[in-house]
């Protein structure tokens, strides 16, 4: 596709024009952090964000989502997508969306996710500020971000707008874009390459070697116990992860006590009851009873189990888990580096 340029002063007008036409979700400030939220005006948009608390997957897979509604013996679905522009997604989060796209589509297509995904135009954006725990420059470097429709790079007092799909091109009509010069395209490439060099943490091993070593470490119970010693089983590392997609399903009645909903909620495999089943005999059994077994399961999922399907690790290097873990034991760079260095 092609590259366009928009001056800084015209960019806000462009965003406001898109807001006038569609639902627009982008990064905004929340206290000392950033979150994705529906924009009311371009002023709220903070493309200088470092990382958001939750990844943008919440646009398609919200923390709670009604799947089925029932009333008087009638049961119906509630897939109701809204045309949306998701504006300002860093490349590592595009990779995360690529993974959840695949996972919700494989084998059984889940249109509770896919319908909103297809109704969304994703505009990726260059990294202007860097999160202190990021390691996106090194993890899964063999996997290219795919599922975006355009890419914005802040450069030369404006933005380079590279369209990737017809959905991305369709946004051109909302702003004063002109064709970009070779110099602007070159400057944007330099800016994006420079950001990659400033990534603070690095995972210095190839994905395949990591997958093999992590899988082989499964039986090293003493090591996992030590790594997980301070784990609260609080599920924060799961809940903020762009590639976690587990959920629980619960029913509830509305106030009328006759109608109600079947709703899915994000779940977390680090929490204690996640793998607990009520056995046919009546008792319960927890297949990952000890917190270190759950801690290990997360690393198996991120570094080994899904690699074959996804073509790389189920990790984007966003560093959200490292930041969210109050005990600071969740950082994949530290845990995986430890396994690579010491595990036999």
């Amino acid at each position, binding site marked *: 596709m092609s590259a366009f340029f928009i001056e800084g002063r015209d960019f806000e007008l462009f965003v406001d024009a898109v807001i006038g036409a569609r639902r627009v979700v982008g990064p905004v400030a929340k206290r000392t952090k950033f979150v994705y939220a529906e924009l009311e005006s371009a002023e709220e948009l903070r493309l200088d964000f470092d990382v958001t608390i939750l990844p943008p997957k919440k646009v398609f897979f919200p923390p709670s989502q009604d*799947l089925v509604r029932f009333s008087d013996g009638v049961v119906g679905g509630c897939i109701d997508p809204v045309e949306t522009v998701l504006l300002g997604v860093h490349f590592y989060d595009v990779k995360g969306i690529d993974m959840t796209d695949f996972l919700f589509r494989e084998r059984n297509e889940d249109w509770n996710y896919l319908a909103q995904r297809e109704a969304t135009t994703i505009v990726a954006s260059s990294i202007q500020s860097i999160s202190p725990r990021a390691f996106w420059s090194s993890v899964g470097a063999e996997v290219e971000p795919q599922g975006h429709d355009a890419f914005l790079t802040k450069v030369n007092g404006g933005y380079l707008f590279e369209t990737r799909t017809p959905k991305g091109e369709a946004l051109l009509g909302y702003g004063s874009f002109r064709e970009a010069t070779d110099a602007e395209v070159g400057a944007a490439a330099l800016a994006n390459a420079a950001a990659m060099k400033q990534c603070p943490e690095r995972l210095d091993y190839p994905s395949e070697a990591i997958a093999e070593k992590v899988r082989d470490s499964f039986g090293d119970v003493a090591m996992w116990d030590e790594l997980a010693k301070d784990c609260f089983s609080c599920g924060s590392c799961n809940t903020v992860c762009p590639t976690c997609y587990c959920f629980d*399903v*619960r*029913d509830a009645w509305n106030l009328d006590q006759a109608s109600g909903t079947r709703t899915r909620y994000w779940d977390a*495999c680090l929490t204690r009851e996640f793998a*607990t089943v009520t056995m*046919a005999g009546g008792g319960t059994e927890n297949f990952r009873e000890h917190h270190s077994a759950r801690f290990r399961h997360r690393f*198996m999922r991120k570094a080994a*189990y899904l690699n074959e399907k996804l073509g790389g690790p189920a990790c984007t290097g966003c560093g959200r888990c490292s930041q969210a873990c109050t005990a600071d034991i969740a950082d994949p760079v530290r845990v995986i580096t430890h396994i690579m260095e010491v595990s036999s």
Partner: protein
Amino acid sequence: MSCEHHGHDNLFLPREARILHTHRPTASEKHFTLQLADGAPLEFAPGQILEVGVMGYGEIPIGLASSPTRTGTFDIVVRTVGRVSTAINEKEVGDSLWIRGPLGHGFDLDSLKGHDVLIVAGGIGLCPTRSLIQYIEDRRDEFGRFLLFYGARDPLQLLFTEDRLHWRASGDVEYFETVDRADASWTGNVGVITTLFKKVQLLPETRVVICGPPIMFEFVIKELDRLGIVRENIFVDLERRMKCGVGKCGHCQINDKYCCIDGPVFTFSEIQELEEAI
């Protein structure tokens, strides 16, 4: 409340199934015979599961307990253990249950056909295997010898009284049963299920299906190893907390496998390397 926006199926939308018949085989179990409310036949393979629910209470995974060769209706057996199963077991003839499925990957019939088949069922594990038992009975000449071992904790826990009478008298199946603990009325075999192995001669090519509590697996596998039955020919039906039933929600993961779509039936060779399997 449109159910199929944009022409796409909603994986979570259940279908209504009417209860045609119920029966209480034990104090805690209820046996339902169901039919889809729209009259369509339910197409499934032995060993597949249904998510069965009551709206407002939730859904639970239940193995189909009848064979697809017996068309029109289908059976499930539900044990009262929690919130959802209690709500299901309060339903009576004329009421509806809401089902999704069939889900998962049932018994590999092609690898059973033409061979001797032994089914080893412990406790409520007889329910999902009943689907296969009926299937083999209905297509008897497609299989070799057919043996069935069934064990329960005590005589009061034995399911399917009519079926057992029929199996005992039937020339189609060599049926053996045992209880761990007898009571005064019991005249049959007493002991764990592996005690039944000394009653028969089995060829090493026999295909074996196991369904029951995890503790049973270990002992049965030892017997099968002794008989020289390779683990590729041993099929196990596993129980996990299958919530979505469609390979998404993550609750039934065993290492990298999803019990609901990769199973619930696995060959023993597939799962023996999985640390979390049994």
